[in-house]
């Protein structure tokens, strides 16, 4: 008979997953509530979700304080890691989710928000992403990834129109393939090193001087492909435009931020030792990925006719831009990644929210796509404030100072410059220039064209409500006055990233 295993509750460090537990609890709470009382208004669920997210946020702050004092710590048999990057990325995930949830309170009714399950799934999804970033165990990453993804597919489909089903099915199928690739990659690495924890894999590989390099690279390739799918790196990006188009604008905005940051954090953990391994192959592959992703998606974004689809391609481009941080791999670059992503969160979520509030249900003119450029023609005359705000988001995305994203871009380019990636820096700025064109296209439509006849300015804010306005207001204010928060952000992120050894 086996001896019973015993370990103290203390040793588990249960607080390490406290923020995650809270979100899961939130999801369960909503499900249970629904059991007792049906047909509750969505606003209630929004508030409950917000409250749980807020609690999660509070726990995160608590953990951060602890981290700032004591450095990285782990829980559950070293499975759950609380380090700087997991904390920052969880802040981003939870924060972006808090910005997203109020978008459910649109004045028009859409199908997904009529489900309490929507909010439950949403909270489970957040938990999944939180798990994903706070571990370096490939199994746990996989589980977090899958549970989040499964929830996400459902959330997309719940929008309940054929485009969203199509989007969900496409995303799902490709996600399944990516899952296969991921586990295969994990298998290869496991075969070589006998471990599925990244830091152990790293130390074993380094100890063996990367013997059997080809195996290692194969494993890396499979993992990279799976993660690249998640963050939409070309050629694994093909889901992104269709899914963004099929999903509701609010969901698309959310997708452009949260799943990607989770993916980036995993990539960061995985590639942290590889880019410092001195293997030129890694550098070349990442370099090529960065350049191709930025450039090709920019070029495709140029020719889009639908704003949301354009923003989808632009999100791919931004992801490519940020991937360069992984390539550079210095503390400054990793800091820049998070800084960029925080600023990107506000700007991009703002932009998608603007699309969301202009969502029409049944306008004959624009049946085929929700947000064609023509719809925004002459917006400055009919709905000036909305046009100005949208314009600011576009400028920020294009990287025009003093708006938020410029500072992220600047810091990212600086990190490239500092580490000797001069050509990369130049490519990055040239791509920013290309990107400016399509952002400008929307500005041109909004500010320089004549309004479409028979269109009332109301259509641009048809779907708005106080909650949505608040979200947009917050996003706009942060976008405009980002400069004030950059310094504290930068200091915190730098110290967090540096203290977790990235």
């Amino acid at each position: 008979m086996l001896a019973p295993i015993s370990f103290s509750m203390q040793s588990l460090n249960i607080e390490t997953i406290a923020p995650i537990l809270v979100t899961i609890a939130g999801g369960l709470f909503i499900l249970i509530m629904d059991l007792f009382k049906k047909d509750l208004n969505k606003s209630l669920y929004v508030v409950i979700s917000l409250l749980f997210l807020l609690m999660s946020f509070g726990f995160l702050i608590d953990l951060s304080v602890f981290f700032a004092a004591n450095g990285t710590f782990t829980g559950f048999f070293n499975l759950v890691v609380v380090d700087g990057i997991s904390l920052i990325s969880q802040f981003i995930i939870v924060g972006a989710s808090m910005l997203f949830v109020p978008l459910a309170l649109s004045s028009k009714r859409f199908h997904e928000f009529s489900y309490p399950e929507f909010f439950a799934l949403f909270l489970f999804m957040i938990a999944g992403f939180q798990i994903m970033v706070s571990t370096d165990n490939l199994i746990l990453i996989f589980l977090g990834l899958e549970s989040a993804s499964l929830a996400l597919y459902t959330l997309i489909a719940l929008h309940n129109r054929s485009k969203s089903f199509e989007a969900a099915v496409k995303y799902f199928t490709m996600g399944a393939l990516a899952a296969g690739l991921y586990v295969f990659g994990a298998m290869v690495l496991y075969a070589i090193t006998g471990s599925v924890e990244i830091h152990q894999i790293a130390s074993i590989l380094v100890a063996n001087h990367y013997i059997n390099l080809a195996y290692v690279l194969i494993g890396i390739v499979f993992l990279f492909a799976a993660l690249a799918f998640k963050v939409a790196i070309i050629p694994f990006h093909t889901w992104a435009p269709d899914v963004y188009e099929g999903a509701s604008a609010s969901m698309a905005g959310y997708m452009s931020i949260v799943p990607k940051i989770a993916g980036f954090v995993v990539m960061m953990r995985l590639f942290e030792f590889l880019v410092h391994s001195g293997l030129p192959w890694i550098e070349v592959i990442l370099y090529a990925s960065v350049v191709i992703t930025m450039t090709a998606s920019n070029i495709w974004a140029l020719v889009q006719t639908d704003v949301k689809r354009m923003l989808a391609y632009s999100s791919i481009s931004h992801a490519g831009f940020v991937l360069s941080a992984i390539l550079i791999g210095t503390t400054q670059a990793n800091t820049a990644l998070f800084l960029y992503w925080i600023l990107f969160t506000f700007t991009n979520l703002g932009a998608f929210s603007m699309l969301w509030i202009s969502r029409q249900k049944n306008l004959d003119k624009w049946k085929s796509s929700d947000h064609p450029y023509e719809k925004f023609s002459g917006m400055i005359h009919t709905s000036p404030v909305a046009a100005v705000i949208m314009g600011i988001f576009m400028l920020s995305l294009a990287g025009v100072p003093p708006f938020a994203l410029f500072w992220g871009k600047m810091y990212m380019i600086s990190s490239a410059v500092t580490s000797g990636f001069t050509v990369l820096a130049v490519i990055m700025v040239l791509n920013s220039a290309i990107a400016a064109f399509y952002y400008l296209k929307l500005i041109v439509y909004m500010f320089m064209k004549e309004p479409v006849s028979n269109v009332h300015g109301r259509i641009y804010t048809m779907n708005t409500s106080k909650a949505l306005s608040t979200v947009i207001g917050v996003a706009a204010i942060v976008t405009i006055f980002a400069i004030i928060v950059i310094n504290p952000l930068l200091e915190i992120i730098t110290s967090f990233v540096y203290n977790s050894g990235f």
Partner: protein
Amino acid sequence: MEFYLYVALFAPLVGSLFSALFTAKKANKITGYVASFLLFVSFVASGILLYDVWHGGSVHVHLMTWINTGGLYIPFGFIVDNISVTMMMVVTTVSMLVHIYSIGYMDHDEGFNRFFSYLSAFVFSMMILVMSDNFAGLFIGWEGVGLCSWLLIGFWYHKESASWAANEAFIMNRIADVGMLIGIFMIYYTTGSLQYDKVFAALPSASPYVVTLIGSLLFIGAMGKSAQFPLHTWLADAMEGPTPVSALIHAATMVTAGVFLIIRSHALYQMIPNVGEFIASLGAFVAIFAASMALVNRDIKRIVAYSTLSQLGYMFVAAGLGAYWIALFHLVAHAFFKSLLFLGAGNVMHAMDDELDPFKMGGLGKKMKWTLILMVIASMALAGLVPFAGFFSKDPIIEASFVSHHYIIYATIWITAGLTAFYSFRMIGLVFFGEERYKIFGFHPHEAYRFMLLAMAPLGILSIIIGFFRTPFYNFITNILPSTIYEVHPEALAWGMNIATQALVVLFIWYPWQKYAKFKGADKVFEQHFIYKLLFNQYYIPNFYNKCIVVPYTRVSNFFWMSIDLKIVDATVDLIANTLYKTGKKTRYVQDGNLSSMLKWMVFGLVFLLLMAVAYGLAFEYPSKIAEILLNLGVH
């Protein structure tokens, strides 16, 4: 004395500004009177200054700093010395008279006020030009007179030819100004200053090459302003302006600025006699060249203009040979008689309703006695008959060229003296004598206003008597100019030469008188002759300029714009943008919306990365084996 200097300088400006106030108003005689009066004031002030300078004084003032930066110091400084006061006298005298004359001449013109504004502005610029104590100030005046010349040539802007001529004059002067400006740069670069005194003190220590260069460059400037070949075409075309303008600007003052520049810089040119010789040679060439064109011209103003050109040639001969005082003296004398000639031509034009072709006139002498007399005086002065001004001013030039052993120059300008007489009296003959051909064309000529004639009278008197002031002038001016005396030895030869010249002149007065005073009809045979055509078409030089400079310039400009700027430079930029856009258009259907192909893309990406990984992994693992295989394949 400073006070008088400022009065002399600024009175014309005040007049100009005063008139300018009325430009938009109807013609008002007041402006003419005020401007003329202020010119008179300026004249008086100049006279006082002359008196002062005559008695050994000299005024040098420093009004204010103009430019002061990085070691460059240029003040608004004015100097009144023997040279400038001479010029001031000429300028103020002629201007004053022309102003008065213009009150009558521009009587019916609606731009009367504007005219006086421009004219006084011109005088002001000219005063700056002659009074400045540095090259920058000189250049201000230089450009200022150019501007006023542009305004006045194009005064009747509704005439296409007038505005064209104005632009031509301005642009051609500008071309010359390039040389001038570079010369000024060079001076500054060499001497570190632009003040005359400092420059001339410093130049001797500069290398001869540089000095030669500076001299040449300044002369290029002078060539433009004084319309020397090959920049001469503007002067004839400038006759599109009102006649008083021609009298003042294109005869008496502005065109002589080039000569003035040489005289002013005599210290410089004395150092470079070879440049001087070139100047003299060019002057001689222009003298005969212009005179030849005047021979056959059918436009009285143009005849006078060519004669001006020719006389400028004389002046340059003198200046080039170092006979600065003679050049200056001829300048003075020429100013008087040539402006008189122009004003006379103006009277004729006035009488003939702006008709200029002398072949349509004839016999005007009966109606315009006074004009005839004045014109004849002026022509005689021009021809150099004893005792008119020309004899005292022009003949010394001929002698000087002889004395300095430049015999070709001598021969050229000697012949030119004859030609001068010829065309002058051809014109007199055609205009004032013979049949009254104008009647065919229905003109009703009349004598000019009394006061206009009165305004001309002093010029007539001066044309007669100025020659007798040669010796005092010599004494006066050689205080600062080199006092070379060109006397032909032996004295008999001198006498002989004088007589020969006079004879030549008389001969060439008599011949056209014979031919044209009784003019019946044009000599058809002669008009078909090659030489006639050549001369009549001004040696085809304007045509040449048009075909070889204006047209190509336009074509090249168009080419630059249409072919280079739009089709290459701009198109390249657009090409980059279009390439990106088209690439996007062509490749966007990589995303064909089919799930199968999306999955294939993923697998393709994976396989590609695998290929890379395996290739690199193997290469990393078996470098020696791969090298061996490659070696077997013949790759080193």
